[in-house]
């Protein structure tokens, strides 16, 4: 830090002139300014059963409630539940529900909503990406209008810790299964602190505080703004056309830290970038080919242009309890890669690796709005081309991403980022039955360890099991593990009482205030 970065309240931001259109677009009379936060991409849908991105999770947190939620000390506290009793054998829990809750359309919230939600999530035809969160519940039984009995597959000690998933309004669905493409995704109705007022033409979403919820001095209106060019987000905050950025680019940190009208808050840190192979495609189903490609990638050179971070060696970041620090990171070792490719039957002809006359080419797919993804993919393309491997980059919008990656698995290599809550549960990514395991990874030993980690109550047994998972997954190379970046949210200094949930962001929004 030098004098040139001293805190200045009025320093013009470079490129300010080009912001005019964006500023005008977001201009509002001072008296009508809502709390405006930026997302790189507006959620394609607002539906808690199909939430796959952090942007969707954040908006679900505003609109929907679960039976339980986190208190500011991150302990489970009742949300829609009023009280609960666990049977002595831990196999059943009777939950008494609040009677003072109505859905945003005015219908009363009842036990039928809870039963319906669990049944819908468990219905395989619903194809919910959240189904794993209710797999441990065997049955949900309606007892009366405001009481539900949950029957578990195994004895549970603190089932409330798993009852944080969001509840849907049964009266708006004819039956289970429900469909992702139904009208609910654009007309969401929840019981949360904010109700959706409008999906706007500029892709923004306007939400208004539900009358009677929280302190009347809180944020009356919240607007999610889509600002796909992340470079503009910091500028819009500095020009007071936004009140918050959910994640600041590492390169913007210095400017924002030194600006008196901006406050930075650390945000989730359990996220890592990766290059994931399609393990059902030849030749990426061959471990030696994956190891070779990993050895051809200079991770430090990919990371350098986008900011500072820690390189990761497996599915846990270095500060995780489950990180196995004995596992080495992937190193750039071209000669080792050459040997591995040769062993796998590839030959280098005219500076290109081929096998049976076919050149080795990778279709590398990334989400259009993943910050700096274009920079990373282009650098990766350059590195692999230099090494004799062709790369076809492709950047997908949200709908195409979900179709091509999650459903059709049409890719060779995918660049993406996973973000985890503090449980850092990678079961869905690496268990052969995991709902987020679109690479097709399957290792029986890893399955066993992940299951053991879910069932043990001994923290050291769990820690040991998952450190072994870290090692095994690293060695199998279903992904080239890249890095974790520091994450900060930025708020206008006009917003007060801000405490951010480390994963869901808006959990305690009702306490926030704005001048």
């Amino acid at each position, binding site marked *: 830090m030098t004098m040139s970065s001293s805190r200045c309240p009025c320093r013009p931001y470079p490129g300010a002139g080009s912001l005019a259109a964006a500023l005008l677009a977001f201009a509002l009379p001072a008296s009508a300014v809502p709390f405006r936060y930026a997302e790189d991409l507006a959620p394609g849908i607002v539906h808690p059963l199909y939430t796959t991105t952090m942007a969707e999770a954040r908006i679900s947190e505003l609109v929907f409630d679960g039976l339980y939620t986190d208190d500011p*000390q991150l302990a489970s506290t009742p949300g829609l539940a009023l009280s609960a009793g666990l049977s002595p054998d831990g196999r059943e829990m009777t939950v008494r529900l609040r009677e003072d809750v109505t859905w945003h359309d005015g219908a009363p919230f009842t036990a039928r909503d809870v039963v319906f939600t669990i049944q819908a999530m468990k219905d395989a035809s619903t194809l919910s990406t959240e189904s794993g969160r209710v797999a441990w519940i065997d049955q949900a039984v309606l007892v009366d209008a405001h009481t539900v009995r949950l029957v578990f597959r195994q004895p549970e000690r603190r089932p409330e*810790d798993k009852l944080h998933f969001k509840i849907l309004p049964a009266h708006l669905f004819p039956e289970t299964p429900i469909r992702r493409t139904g009208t609910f995704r654009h007309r969401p109705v929840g019981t949360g602190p904010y109700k959706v007022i409008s999906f706007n033409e500029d892709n923004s979403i306007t939400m208004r505080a539900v009358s009677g919820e929280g302190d009347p001095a809180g944020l009356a209106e919240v607007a999610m703004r889509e600002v796909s060019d992340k470079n503009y987000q910091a500028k819009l905050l500095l020009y007071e056309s936004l009140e918050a950025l959910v994640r600041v680019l590492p390169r913007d940190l210095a400017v924002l830290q030194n600006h008196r009208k901006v406050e930075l808050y650390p945000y989730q840190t359990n996220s890592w970038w990766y290059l994931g192979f399609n393990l059902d495609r030849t030749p990426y189903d061959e471990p030696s080919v994956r190891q070779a490609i990993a050895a051809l990638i200079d991770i430090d050179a990919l990371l350098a242009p986008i900011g500072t971070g820690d390189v990761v060696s497996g599915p846990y970041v270095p500060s995780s309890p489950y990180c196995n620090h004995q596992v080495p990171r992937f190193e750039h070792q071209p000669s080792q890669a050459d040997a591995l490719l040769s062993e796998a039957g590839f030959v280098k002809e005219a500076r290109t690796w081929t096998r049976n006359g076919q050149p080795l080419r990778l279709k590398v797919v990334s989400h259009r709005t993943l910050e700096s993804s274009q920079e990373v993919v282009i650098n990766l393309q350059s590195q692999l081309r230099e090494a004799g491997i062709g790369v076809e980059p492709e950047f997908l919008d949200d709908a195409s991403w979900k179709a091509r990656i999650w459903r059709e698995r049409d890719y060779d290599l995918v660049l993406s980022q996973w973000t985890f809550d503090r449980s850092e549960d990678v079961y869905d990514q690496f268990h052969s039955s995991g709902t987020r395991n679109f690479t097709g990874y399957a290792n029986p030993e890893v399955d066993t360890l992940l299951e053991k980690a879910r069932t043990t*109550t001994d*923290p050291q047994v769990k820690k040991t099991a998952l450190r072994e998972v870290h090692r095994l997954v690293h060695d199998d190379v279903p992904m080239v593990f890249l890095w974790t970046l520091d994450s900060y949210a930025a708020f206008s200094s006009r917003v007060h009482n801000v405490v951010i949930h480390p994963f869901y962001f808006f959990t305690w929004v009702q306490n926030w205030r704005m001048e």
Partner: protein
Amino acid sequence: MRTATLVAWMLAGSCRPSHEGLTPPSPLDASWIAQVTREPATFAALVDESSRDGWVAFHRCAFEEAAEAFLGDAPTTREARGRALVEAMLLYEDLARVGDVVWQVLADTWKDHPGVPPGSGLPYVAGLAALERGDASAARSWFDLGTGASDPEVAEACRWMATRAEGGPESDVSNGLVGRTLGHLEARRTGRLDPRLHADGPLVQDRDPQGTVIRTFGDPQWLRTWASVARHRALEILDARGIAEALSDPVPGSDPLSAVIFGPCHASSDCTAFQDVPRSGTALLDDFGMGASLPPTDDADQARRAVRALDARFDSWTASLHGTVSADGRALLDDLALAAVFRSRVLLAEARVAMRSDQPARALTLALLALDLASARQIGPVNHPGLYAVMAEAQLRTGHTREALDALQVLETLLPGLGGLEEAANDLAVLQGIDRYGDSKEN
């Protein structure tokens, strides 16, 4: 941070003093920053008189290394070595407080759910941790529980501690677990660490019937022992009975700059101590708009406002200074990041005061605002290790154990293993989420 530049400057020898004046009305005009930048020769003289390597290490917050580098009995060198040891002591004390929280919550949570594993050595470690935080009653309960440990040595140690926890004649550290515990107490009494006490490796291990290790527990006594040894050494070198006395009476004949440079007090005349934490006196804090007394409630927003008030005044003063000192003075100000270092130390001192006053939200906010985010995962001149210790304790006290691990991981680079603290914190983070299924999303 520019260590290379710092070293180059220090090796370059003395600089000419500036004759340019500086007259804004602020207590900072008499500060070490003003002195160093207005008269760079004074800094060069200090470095020449003591140890360049020592000040380089002190500047980048490697305090043990600095203490080793300040050799000899010259007054200025003694003062510098004493200050480095006080800094080390404060860090270990911060970490010992982190350990107090971690061990207490870990042991109590484990006991509550899923229950202490039968035959485990956990009660012995929990008992020691309770003694560390001064809770003799809890210690006795834990030691009683531990008499049923499968390991006969652990069971015997629990029986001994349950009945003679206040001390005894044995102090031979080779004499098993009890000897090790008494070795810590002896080190704290004398300020000398028996080399047979080894910080690495677990204190207690649980084994299954086949003899395989299934659990390990570190020694919760290390951090306070290190703090105590550093305190003894510092006070001996500074010839003082306590930190407050050491602050008010620098070593006679020492260069006055050596008592305050790179620290939170702008001058030794304005240096006070709150529970051993050296901090700026009332005049400077008032001038900064921070106020010397804490607000009645633990308020993060109030802390942010206070820091903004500090920044407004301090930036203005620093800009004025920057414009009036010589090129050599400006080079020192910029290359050594003196303003940012001073700001960071002031905020760390206030964060420590807040932490010791049971205001974790304020402490966390002050520590976060003191960090240079451009290198947030690295200890350096601005990012003092104490900031991470304060953040870890504040996060733990507010239930955010997983976030505390981020701060502890940074400290791991300075103190590998942290005397077993890091693994205990890992266990706590795992235990607190043992019944959860996690959530994950893309991007």
